């Protein structure tokens, strides 16, 4: 059997053809966020191995992670988490609960609830800096 490493019209064009509909956009986003989260779990597991090197090594590392830049990155990480989680539930409903009949309504819920949870998480994570920002008004 002859293998073709690349489709005749090119890899990129084939991939761009997928994105025609809201459902396909959701599918592509699910893959990208999934690959991102998988990469993150590797980094996460590696970073926490410093626990075995004693208190000093671990606390030094945590000092870096508990900085504003990393908190913003953590918040952005949550956007991957929340999208992949909510769309994952949508996929299970589509596959196991006749969700194909109403998957676009579910998608609207995914995006709507996702944005609300993302902003809510931002307020939760940055409640102290936000409070400090408006402290002079009190």
């Amino acid at each position, binding site marked *: 059997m002859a293998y*073709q490493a690349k489709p005749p019209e090119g890899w990129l064009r084939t991939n761009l053809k997928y994105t025609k509909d809201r459902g396909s956009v959701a599918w592509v986003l699910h893959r990208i966020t999934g690959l991102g989260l*998988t990469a993150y779990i590797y980094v996460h597991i590696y970073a926490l191995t410093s626990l075995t090197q004693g208190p000093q090594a671990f606390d030094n590392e945590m000092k870096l992670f508990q900085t504003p830049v990393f908190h913003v990155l953590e918040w952005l990480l949550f956007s991957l988490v929340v999208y992949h989680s909510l769309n994952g539930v949508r996929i299970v409903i589509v596959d196991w609960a006749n969700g194909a009949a109403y998957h676009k309504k579910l998608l609207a819920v995914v995006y709507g609830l996702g944005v609300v949870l993302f902003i809510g998480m931002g307020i939760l994570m940055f409640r102290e800096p936000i409070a400090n920002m408006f402290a002079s008004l009190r």
Partner: protein
Amino acid sequence: MYKHTGSRGSGAPGWVLQRITGILLFVVVLTHFFVMHANPASGHTYAAVLARMHDPFWKMFDLTFITVGLWHGLNGTWGVFRDYKMKPAVSLTIYGVIILSGIAFWVLGVNTILSF
């Protein structure tokens, strides 16, 4: 070889397990994020983490997370690669990297948790 690199076999067990682990991770990941990432007050010092590590509940929680999370992530990654027509050697290499790195990082994570 083809069985493992995608041209034979329905992939159905992986598909079902991807959904089951996904539902489990929905609970585990969101709990983990709210407790650990969203809430600096939950304690990120060595002492605070060690106290949690000695709690059997959080120990089991983290072991479950590492095992199920890695499996779900790597099964998903393999699912992405499976969608592309690849030469058997390329396919087998990617599959090997996924399996071996998965095992390596699982051992690394479990070792960290069980050190305490």
